[in-house]
């Protein structure tokens, strides 16, 4: 059983997605329990797998018994072990937290929603677990297509267009990636990551490998919304249904950052990426630009959900920049921030989901008096905000600590300043909302209950997961030292100083 974890983690939700799809014709109320069971199994497998990796080192699984490089190999080390845990836990938490929203928003179609949801998560798990560059592309397409569909289910007037925009740009991004691995295949005749990595070093100086690298990176950067390739993200995430945003936003971009790290670590190898190519400085400067522009664009928003989407754009800059600093501190910070940003984004979007469930409107002007109406949701929102600002002991502080330390060590003071600038802008962003929600009196017209000033908190099934996520912000923060030493430090390649 434990031996099959790598494949179960993908196949269980994949098959469940079809079962859910079938069940939606028979009995709608069964869709949610099946989805819960599927993702619960994934969480179980992911955690089991992580412990197995901690005990035994790298775990490999060969599909159908075909040996690599001919067959597809699933290969789990600590990096994707951690990713699998993040993806499955976030997906499960969000599934529970948004059940009420889904039932309310899609009374007829929630079978469809859950099918897409589980398929989307399957794709993300697959991307994380696979050790094959083409298999990664296939799963990437599964993820993207379901994401397009999930987003299109949102606001009837705006979501389809936002989704279409995402389809165009996302497809171009995927094509770049496909071209990149095409070049790799031409040069090496292999699609298995480990195999490619062993064949590449003699031909590092070939132009084709350079082109392959660039195409792969452009594709991945498009998918992760790295500035200036971010244009699809804000609208898509804003107009998507709340229940979908709060799973896509924390996971999609983070998994793509993982793919970037995976390509550098296990396909092209750090030696090529950092020493043969002199590209890391360019990436760091682009990341600074992403951070600054993301922050500035967030400042100009009037809708809380749109604002958060621009914060994601800026956070992507944190991770990409931190990784390309090329030292242990920066890379640890980047990987730690994948975890932290996933929790943080989940916390913020769940809180926004609760607000939207009760208030229906997410423009700033409708948030008046919210501290009195939804104190627990707002407390969690503030916790998420503090983490985004980087106030200790929330986890956001600790990843910022590593990232800035890395920047100082690498002498990249521009990146340090960009991080500080974004922290300060986040103070403005979050306290602007806190001010509105705290100082301004409620307007009678958006008081849906008719009882002025009384508490209208979201139901418990939404609050409890939100609170768990909010508390985990602090818990993960306090244990970030242990997380870095046990989970992150061992995966960094030896040559990195």
């Amino acid at each position, binding site marked *: 059983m434990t031996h099959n974890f790598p494949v179960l983690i993908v196949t269980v939700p994949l098959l469940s997605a079809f079962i859910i799809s079938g069940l939606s014709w028979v009995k709608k109320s069964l869709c949610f329990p099946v989805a819960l069971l599927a993702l619960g199994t994934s969480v179980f497998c992911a955690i089991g797998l992580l412990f197995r990796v901690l005990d035994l080192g790298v775990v490999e699984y060969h599909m159908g018994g075909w040996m690599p490089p001919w067959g597809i190999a699933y290969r789990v080390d600590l990096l994707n072990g951690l990713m699998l845990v993040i993806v499955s836990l976030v997906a499960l938490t969000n599934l529970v937290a948004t059940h009420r929203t889904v039932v309310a928003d899609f009374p007829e179609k929630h079978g469809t929603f859950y099918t897409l949801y589980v398929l989307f998560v399957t794709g993300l798990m697959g991307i994380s677990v696979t050790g094959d560059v083409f298999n990664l592309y296939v799963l990437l397409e599964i993820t993207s297509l379901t994401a397009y569909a999930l987003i299109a289910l949102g606001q009837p007037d705006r979501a389809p267009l936002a989704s279409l925009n995402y389809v165009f740009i996302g497809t171009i991004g995927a094509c770049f990636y496909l071209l990149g691995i095409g070049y790799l295949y031409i040069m090496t005749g292999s699609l298995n990551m480990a195999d490619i990595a062993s064949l590449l070093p003699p031909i590092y100086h070939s132009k084709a490998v350079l082109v392959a690298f660039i195409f792969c990176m452009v594709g991945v950067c498009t998918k992760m919304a790295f500035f200036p390739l971010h244009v699809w993200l804000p609208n898509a995430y804003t107009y998507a249904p709340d229940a979908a945003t709060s799973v896509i936003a924390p996971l999609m971009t983070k998994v793509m950052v993982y793919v970037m790290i995976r390509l550098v670590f296990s396909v092209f190898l750090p030696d090529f990426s950092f020493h043969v190519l002199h590209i890391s400085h360019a990436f760091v400067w682009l990341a600074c630009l992403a951070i600054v522009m993301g922050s500035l664009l967030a400042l100009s928003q009037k809708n809380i959900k749109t604002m958060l989407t621009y914060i994601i754009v800026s956070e992507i800059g944190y991770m990409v920049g931190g990784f390309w600093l090329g030292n242990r501190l920066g890379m640890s910070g980047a990987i730690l921030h994948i975890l932290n940003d996933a929790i943080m984004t989940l916390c913020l979007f769940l809180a926004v989901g609760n607000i939207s469930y009760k208030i229906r409107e997410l423009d700033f002007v409708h948030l008046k008096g919210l501290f009195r109406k939804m104190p627990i949701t707002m407390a969690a929102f503030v916790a998420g905000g*503090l983490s985004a*600002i*980087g*106030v*200790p*002991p929330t986890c956001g502080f*600790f990843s910022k*600590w590593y990232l*800035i*330390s890395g920047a*100082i*060590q690498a002498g990249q003071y521009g990146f*340090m300043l960009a991080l*500080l600038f974004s*922290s*300060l802008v986040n*103070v403005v962003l979050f*306290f602007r909302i806190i*001010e509105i929600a*705290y*100082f301004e009196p409620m307007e009678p017209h958006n008081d849906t209950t008719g009882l002025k000033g009384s508490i209208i908190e979201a139901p418990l099934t939404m609050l409890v997961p939100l609170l768990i996520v909010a508390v985990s912000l602090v818990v993960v923060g*306090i*244990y*970030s*030292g242990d997380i870095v030493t046990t989970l992150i430090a061992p995966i960094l390649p030896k040559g990195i100083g």
Partner: protein
Amino acid sequence: MEMVNSIRPLLAVMVSLCAVPLIAAARKPNVREMWTFLAAALKFLIVISMLPAVLRGSQFTYTLVEFLPGAAIRFKVDALGMLFALVASSLWIITSVYSVGYMRGLKEHSQTRYFCFFALALSATIGVAFSANLLTLYLFYEMLSLATYPLVTHHQDREARQSGRKYLTYILGTSIGLVLPAMLIIYHLTGSLEFSSVGLLAGHASKGLVALLLFMLLFGFAKAAIMPFHGWLPAAMVAPTPVSALLHAVAVVKVGVFSIVRVLIGIFGTDLLFSYHLSTPILIVASITILAGSLIALSQDNLKRLLAFSTISQLSYIILGVALLSPKGMTGGILHIAMHAFGKITLFFCAGAIFVATGKKNISEMTGIGRRMPVTMAAFFIASLSIIGLPPCGGFWSKWYLVLGSLEANHLSVLFVLLFSSFLNACYFMPIAYRAFFLRPEESMFEKGVQEGPPFCVVPLVITALFSIFLLFYPQPFLDLATMMVRSLGGT
């Protein structure tokens, strides 16, 4: 020096943090206040239980979690931290009594929120006092900034909103923009953030870099209200008076000053500052703040604003004393943390009592108020003497040591600043007492005979005023702690 591993510092921090949910959940106001008092009393007892050992030269340490080598969340109770914790925890009890009188007297809204965040703020204050390294200090410093935001903006009106914005801009802007990078640069240079008695930076950084870090930390801890980062303090006076009293005369501002003293001693080290001649710029900045603060205070009519500017000026005495780098001067500076606290909290209590009893905020409206509120105004007079630095009040001791220190360090200009500022203090405090007692009231409202504020307001201010006098005759615990701290530095 004996190191004792003990959980007591953590308990002292946690006790008010644990009280927060109890305060929030209490249904009846009396039960709620009981939790506050219980937490305050427990906190004080825990702090004072460590005093004898600290006076014998032991230090209590406790490591909560080691996050990186050299960067842990760790507590350490030494003489300096003890002194500050003693002041803050004892005054919390008195302020809680006063808060009950003030908040109920004015029938303020959201009292539960108020008491919750007050308890939270005290946890953070003790956390700062007992921090063993810069990371822990930063953690609690930020926690204090955020916990006091709802207190400063308690009234939730337009003015509170503006002041809250100003407060956060100054405090968070400087701590994230200056302290955080400075801390990381120090960590990068030295591989540690622990406060040591000889400093960390010696031998790790060039003079220019040390000067830059000094600048970042001196101004970064904007709670110390060193000019030009003082603007938030007068603005924060919109808070209810007990908040101004404890937080803006004692906890928040003293946390700022305490942090600066800590980094000057524990990170830079007195020897390094001395050998690089870096004390002079600090002395200049502090002197400007002292004189400018006093001069601005002269022109204030709003009593709380006057007290705010007086605080700005007095805080820099502490920085000045430590920057003198002479044993007596440093003792005086550290001692001033305690002496100023007892005097200034009395003054704020008086301002609040006057507001509760008469609704007056401006000095010009307080003509003859001494006849109506003799006890309050007598306490006010005593506390002003303490701030000016005259006997029979404790403030005399810190001024005395500061003056001796300036002579010892051969800084005659500093001596002049100290004396001139004391003169200015007298110039803005004495007219208030004179107006209150000797001028004939113009309005009939003061003719009703003696009419003091509610007893919950008057008793605390009498206690703190008496304490100011008591400290002249018995400054021992604070004086001993201050001398011990200075002696432990060795060198200089």
